[in-house]
């Protein structure tokens, strides 16, 4: 990459010969890069709108947004960790305990609700559960100095184990006024969960993208040494990101209890889709870095794929494969465009 950059000044003649050419080409490439993933998104939406019956109906779009709430909240939590830890998949920020966190928080909520405690207590307990898990991650990464990938993997196993002990691997049904309100439909038949996702993303997005704290998170993630030299509290910011992620896990747990009318087993299966969603989110940002808005778009993108395939009545045995191929196409197209621009 640097070699190409070094070569550019060596051809000033070419630039003079066609002054508008490369500039225009560069602009187009940059535009394509910025818009490429959005165009791909729009094309897929258009294809579904034309071919899949009911796709554009308000009820169906509402369903997609509502179904995106739980993976969306988890992916937003992971995005905060990705921002603060840097997006290197192996050594950078990652929180593998998120899905298990959601499972345990949901189990705590459902257990308390079944034992007759009110929504207030259950909500507090679920968020506290998530927060504690986040704090343990933060301790393991910041104080003990373990690579996030390993630290959160270990915490994931511990959390999943506690959930097994608490639930005995059974479904715990729960119905409370708050849960019923969350699983109902709001105006125009749009699920309340969908509205929750939008409001949640707006709030977190505002904090991460538009406040000094958010900017510091990016600084710490992309260049920790520079951050430290500039006097930023690197360790505190990193620890804070893990706690925030843990709280997102607890919040997703509450949403999950409302969606499934209780806590159920198998929350761990959510992990890989959430990791894919959060990593894919970078593709939907202008500078190809993790952003809250990009993660929301990526969550909706994955949700629309799943929904569109069901509407098109594609055999359930094919859906996973086709989904993977489409995601691969979007990511590689954007990566190629990025290289071209460079």
């Amino acid at each position: 990459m640097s070699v190409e950059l070094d070569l550019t000044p060596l051809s000033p003649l070419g630039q003079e010969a066609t002054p508008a050419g490369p500039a225009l080409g560069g602009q187009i490439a940059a535009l394509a890069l910025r818009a490429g993933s959005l165009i791909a998104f729009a094309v897929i939406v258009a294809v579904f709108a034309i071919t899949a019956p009911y796709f554009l109906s308000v009820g169906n779009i509402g369903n997609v947004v509502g179904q995106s709430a739980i993976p969306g909240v988890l992916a937003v939590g992971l995005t905060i960790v990705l921002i603060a830890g840097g997006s290197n998949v192996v050594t950078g920020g990652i929180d593998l305990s998120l899905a298990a966190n959601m499972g345990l928080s949901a189990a705590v909520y459902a257990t308390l609700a079944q034992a007759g405690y009110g929504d207030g207590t259950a909500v507090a307990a679920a968020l506290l559960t998530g927060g504690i898990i986040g704090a343990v991650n933060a301790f393991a990464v910041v104080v003990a100095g373990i690579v996030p990938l390993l630290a959160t993997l270990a915490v994931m196993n511990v959390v999943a184990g506690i959930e097994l002990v608490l639930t005995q691997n059974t479904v715990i049904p729960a119905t409370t006024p708050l849960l019923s309100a969350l699983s109902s439909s709001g105006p125009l038949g749009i699920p309340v969960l969908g509205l929750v996702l939008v409001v949640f993303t707006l709030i977190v997005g505002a904090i991460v993208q538009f406040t000094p704290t958010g900017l510091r998170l990016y600084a710490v993630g992309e260049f920790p040494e520079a951050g430290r030299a500039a006097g930023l509290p690197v360790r505190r910011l990193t620890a804070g990101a893990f706690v925030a992620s843990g709280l997102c896990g607890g919040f997703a747990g509450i949403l999950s209890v409302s969606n499934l009318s209780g806590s159920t087993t198998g929350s761990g299966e959510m992990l890989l889709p959430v990791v894919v969603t959060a990593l894919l989110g970078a593709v939907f940002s202008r500078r190809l870095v993790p952003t809250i808005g990009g993660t929301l778009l990526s969550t909706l993108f994955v949700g629309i794929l799943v929904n569109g395939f069901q509407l098109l009545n594609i055999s359930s045995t094919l859906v996973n494969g086709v989904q993977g191929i489409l995601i691969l196409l979007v990511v590689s197209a954007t990566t190629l465009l990025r290289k071209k621009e460079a």
Partner: protein
Amino acid sequence: MIDTWMAALGRRDILKFTAAAGATLTAASLLGPSIASASGALSLKGKRIGISATGTDHFFDLQAYNAQIEEVKRLGGEPIAVDAGRNDGKLVSQLQTLIAQRPDAIVQILGTLSVIDPWLKKARDAGIPVLTVDVGSTNSINNTTSDNWGIGKDLALQLVSDIGGEGNIVVFNGFYGVTPCAIRYDQLVNVVKYFPKVKILEPELRDVIPNTVQDAFTQITALLNKYPEKGSIKAIWSAWDIPQLGATQALAAAGRTEIRTYGVDGSPEVLQLVADPASPAGADVAQQPAEIGRTAIQNVARLLSGETLPRETYVPALLANKANVAEVTKKLGIG
């Protein structure tokens, strides 16, 4: 009167009785396909039928799911089939999308009731008829399932017949809380009541999940040490066939192959043991998942043509014993 009847009820009579029961069963199973062909009048032409499976990783649900898709196509309809891969979140999302697709009916295969019921209710509220396979719900118009009373009775009669109407039997009764298991156990008790020389040994054994096979093996091995004399135990009964698998292995290992084992579900590995003349596995009642799937779809067609459906439709199960196991496995398509 009853006493004289009991006295007259020797081994040969029991055998005749069972033979008659077996003949009825065979007739019923032969009738299966002919009912299907007689329902040629049924049609789903132009109808879109939602099929929602909790998962397709078990023999039962895979067979039921595929048979449903085929049956909708055979009747001229369009299946919208989704498989949640045993993930409740996915199951709920798929049901939500299915409701938005406004099919002419939805058939739900299995599922945890507390998870699916709110969405089955939403489907019903949206005017979409809901039918179920092997899961009873107040929001379902009809549930197609196996007749567990029939299963329990057939298995008990086979057992009593095989041991000549007398002797001690060991039972695994760890899941009386699960309705189908309770029905099967109650039917065993009902049958044994009329054979005073048959005794259920106390204490009853408790089968467990997981490690069912290993645990049954250990429990039976210990019990055989307690009853070392041949003939002191005639048979071992369990409400499903995984404890039966462990028990059968324990009998073979201890060389006590004079004892026979009995169970329910038609797991392919147990049916293989039943087919082995040297194995102590006596009988296994197999459900007909594919037939259950087809029947559920035929019920949809009946409903959409204006017929009223019963709350539950029972599909006969097939008792596989040493004599007919080849035939049964062939019919189940696992031979």
